[in-house]
């Protein structure tokens, strides 16, 4: 127990919290970017526009089926070979956005597919154009079905930011490793801190989501 008191100094605690802040920063930026790109790609895939939708579909399937860790490696260590260099923070956000956009596109597509086709037919019969029907009638209903899978995806995203420790992004996991690297007695206290901090953030998000789900559902 003594090691806990030694490990949880104010300086170490602040060092970890700054890491948590980087984790949240990367998560929020990636969530916003990938939601926009994912929504767009999901719609493109759904509307079955000749050639374009097919190509987008193949690209989404390729990205979705690769490990995120590989994309992070590739972005940070592979892309400089063809002249694209990024800071760890930018590389992490870029890799996560590409991966999560593909995941979200699939969620959006199945969300739209789950809406009864009668809704679009009804909208068209009432004089709305295809795009109006999609935007005002189908998408809002699809969004309701998309909330649970989207939230699990966002929680995965927050947890997966820990992978960016490999490209020396100073987020939570990386900083905990630095602290217990100085003294092995700090290992258990640091893993407890990691578990608690990640749990609190992710579990809080899932609680907010189930509230939200009840309100719109």
């Amino acid at each position, binding site marked *: 127990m003594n090691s806990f008191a030694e490990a949880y100094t104010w300086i170490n605690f602040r060092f970890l919290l700054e890491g948590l802040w980087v984790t949240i920063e990367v998560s929020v930026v990636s969530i916003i970017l990938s939601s926009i790109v994912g929504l767009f790609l999901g719609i493109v895939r759904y509307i079955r526009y000749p050639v374009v939708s097919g190509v987008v579909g193949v690209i989404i*399937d*390729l990205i*979705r*089926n*690769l*490990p*995120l*860790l*590989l994309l992070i*490696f*590739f972005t940070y*260590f*592979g*892309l*400089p*070979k*063809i002249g694209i260099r990024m800071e760890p923070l930018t590389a992490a956000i870029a890799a996560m956005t590409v991966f999560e956009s593909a995941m979200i596109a699939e969620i959006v597509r199945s969300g739209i597919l789950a809406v009864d086709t009668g809704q679009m037919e009804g909208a068209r019969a009432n004089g709305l154009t295809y795009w109006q029907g999609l935007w005002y009638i189908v998408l809002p209903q699809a969004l309701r079905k998309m909330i649970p899978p989207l939230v699990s995806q966002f*929680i995965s995203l927050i*947890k*997966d930011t*820990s*992978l960016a*420790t*490999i490209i020396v992004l100073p987020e939570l*996991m990386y900083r905990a*490793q630095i602290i*217990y690297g100085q003294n*092995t007695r700090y*290992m*258990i206290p640091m*893993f407890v801190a*990691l*578990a608690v901090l*990640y*749990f609190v953030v*992710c*579990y809080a998000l*899932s609680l907010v989501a189930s509230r939200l789900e009840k309100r719109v559902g």
Partner: protein
Amino acid sequence: MISVFQQHGQELLTGLGNTILCSVIALFFSLIIGSTFAIFEVLPSKLLRVIGRIYIEVFRNIPLLVIGMFFYVVVPQYVLPMDGFTAGTIGLTLYTSSFIAETVRAGIQAVDSGQMEGARANGLSFMQAMWHIVLPQAFKYVIPPLGNQFINLVKNSSVLAFVAGFDLMYQGDMIASATFDTFNTYIAVGVLYLIITLPLSYYMRYLEKKLA
């Protein structure tokens, strides 16, 4: 990319083998653990329900990397020595079991409650009814999401690279740092991952359509 396969085919294949091996082991044990906790969650006992819930929420909300690293650095120091492959596979098993528990629980709850009532009315005990009547029917709902969990498992097994687990990602990283040909090596590694995950993913989509 072709030259990476020609020069380092052996290492990559070893990595691919380890990736498949640890995914299959983790799938097997996480199915057992996950189904157990899923059954906990539908039992009449409140205590077991709470235990099931806590287990699932804890392992679902902590990064796999934290769990894997715990078994790689903390457990050998204080409890028992283990290599990276074992530590990574245990981490993967615990992490995946929480997702499988959620999947199986949803499957059990999708089975009409009349099935359980009918079985109980015919004199079966709760566990008999669960094992012989409810679980076989739940299986049908659970197959496509379990397939998707397995795909996630294969992708997630790449964290073995952090704990020297000699999986595909680790081998790729070794080749990349030895040859400096990062660009082509990571593409080759990606192709090998896709060889496992892509056919599975299309098959699951086909199954989902067929069962729906």
